[in-house]
């Protein structure tokens, strides 16, 4: 058993070590656009021999330590050291470099960081903690990372140079992205939940609604944005007052409508599935207690269906956080603005500045929903 668990820890440690050994840790470029030269981890201005040795020891530690908690701590420590070495290395490199030089994170860093994070997540999963403890166990390192970011540890890395140069665009993108995701979620819930109930109570509604929603889901996002530009543009021309509300062929309006349409299928399908899954005996018991149809729905059916419905909402939120990136193509704002601008300027770090927050938001949302779903499951079992 112990050997098996050790072997599975090696699955994370070996790629991390191989990545660091074969690929550059940092990438040094004379300016923003040109291709760079790699700096390996053990180079004096990379992480130095001492840093490299410590890091290798910590990564090997995730394999050699038997206890999952120790493994988790070792993986986190490796991740922290990776980040610290990268920040320090960038500071050293930029101190003796010309003003326009850029230092980016190299392939070795990304591979090692990804596998260290996976190893930490794997250890947490094996500890089988409660949802809240798990969130705290992940929130503390995140807090530490946030403080280091604030404290300027990474300021010499190119990605933060991009942030400094595009701070107002970034802030607007964050607000815009949240507005797209939440702005589409709320109408989708208001329409989707009753529609799911309708599918549950009427067979005919089901045979019409579900295929139509399937069709919507099949339509590629950029095509959906394009198709919605036409009616919304016409609407804003016909009713100019709507234009003051921001309704138009381009901008956030078609994006929000498109995201809400994509959100409908998982919400409706899961509401339907959740309601179907309520045991008939429970319904009978409620009816026997003299509950009205509405009361039965509110007090018995919805609470029992809640975990399945929430799973649908989780799918929707994660999916729309990703899809909202495409909205920038039609001027809908959000982090896609940074991604597309970065691609236009061939500036990889600007692309990353747009991508990393999207991925972070998606991971954050799935963790939160997992915790909520677990809580409702436990509540339902009581």
């Amino acid at each position, binding site marked *: 058993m112990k050997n*098996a668990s050790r*072997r*599975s820890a090696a*699955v*994370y440690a070996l790629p991390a070590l191989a990545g660091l050994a074969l690929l550059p840790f940092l990438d040094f470029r004379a300016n923003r656009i040109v291709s760079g030269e790699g700096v390996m981890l053990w180079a004096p201005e990379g992480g130095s021999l001492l840093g490299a040795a410590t890091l290798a020891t910590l990564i090997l530690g995730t394999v050699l330590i038997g206890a999952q908690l120790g493994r988790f701590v070792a993986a986190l420590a490796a991740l922290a050291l990776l980040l610290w070495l990268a920040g320090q290395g960038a500071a050293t490199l930029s101190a003796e470099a010309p003003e326009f030089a850029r230092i980016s994170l190299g392939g070795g860093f990304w591979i090692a960081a990804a596998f260290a994070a*996976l190893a930490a*997540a*794997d250890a947490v*999963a094996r500890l089988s903690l409660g949802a809240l403890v798990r969130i705290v166990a992940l929130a503390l390192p995140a807090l530490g990372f946030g403080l280091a970011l604030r404290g300027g540890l990474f300021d010499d890395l190119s990605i933060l140079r991009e942030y400094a140069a595009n701070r107002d665009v970034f802030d607007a993108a964050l607000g815009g992205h949240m507005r797209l995701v939440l702005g589409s979620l709320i109408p989708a819930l208001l329409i989707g939940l009753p529609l799911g109930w309708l599918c549950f109570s009427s067979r005919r509604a089901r045979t019409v609604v579900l295929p139509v929603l*399937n*069709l919507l889901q*099949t*339509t*590629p*996002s*950029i*095509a*959906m*944005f*394009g*198709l919605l*530009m*036409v009616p919304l*543009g*016409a609407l804003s021309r016909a009713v100019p007052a709507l234009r003051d509300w921001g309704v138009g*062929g381009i901008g956030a309006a078609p994006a929000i409508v498109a995201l809400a349409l994509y959100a409908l299928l998982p919400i409706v399908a899961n509401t339907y599935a959740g309601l179907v899954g309520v045991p008939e005996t429970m319904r009978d018991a409620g009816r026997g207690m003299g509950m009205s149809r509405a009361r039965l729905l509110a007090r018995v059916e919805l609470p029992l269906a809640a975990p399945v419905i929430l799973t649908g909402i989780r799918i929707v939120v*994660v999916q729309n*956080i*990703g*899809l909202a*990136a*495409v909205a920038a*193509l*039609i001027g809908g704002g959000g982090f*896609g603005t940074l*991604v*597309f601008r*970065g*691609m236009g300027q*061939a500036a*990889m770090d600007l*692309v*990353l500045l*747009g*991508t990393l927050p*999207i*991925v972070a938001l*998606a*991971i954050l949302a*799935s963790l939160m929903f997992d915790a909520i779903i677990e809580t409702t499951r436990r509540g339902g079992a009581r």
Partner: protein
Amino acid sequence: MSRGALALLVALALFAALVLWPGLMTPLLRLVAEPGQALLYDRQPIRVLVAWHLALVGAAGVVASVVGMTLGVLVTRPRGAEFMTLARMASNLGQTFPPIAVLAVAVPLLGFGFEPTFLALCAYGLLPVFENTVAGLRGVPAPVREAARGMGLACSARLWRVELPLAAPVILTGLRLSTVVNIGTATIGSTVGAVGLGEVIIAGLQSGNTAFVLQGALLVALMAICADLALRGLERRMSRAG
């Protein structure tokens, strides 16, 4: 003829007609165009764009299904069990990456054009195939597996003649999801220079020509719907055969 087959036939006929005679769309496009704007995209024949789009999605689909299914089979074997958590976590994480990010990250590695889009499509299309291969193989009932072993079938024979055929409908669902997502991602691929139908939409967005946008959007949506209906039909046939 079943309702699904009828829907597929209608969608395919409509798609083929609009690809072969783009002019059929002009009355519709005239409704949205500004006076004096071109109605039909004419920088490249639509047929060529459709062929490239299909080639891109098809080639990536083949790679994604071969790699995804192989990985799915490997982690469900006893010897590969240790990789299961890693593979599941990596696959979950992969799905939080928006397609546009995968494309954007591939560009500096491979340059603009066909290659980054192809790589992004392979990577992104792999996830649903892998997930569904694992789910399908795990869903094979234990008594069936026992019976196959009792009949004295070797490991590989059990896999090829019992487990994979039983898991086929679920795997096919993964392939369908992967194909539909990839038709959309290939469209976005036009922002990094891949030749395909996305070009029409992007050109329309860049020049403020709503007619181009509508033409491209309709064609892409129809293509995705055709692929979805066709693979759904295949799934139904397979699960009936099983």
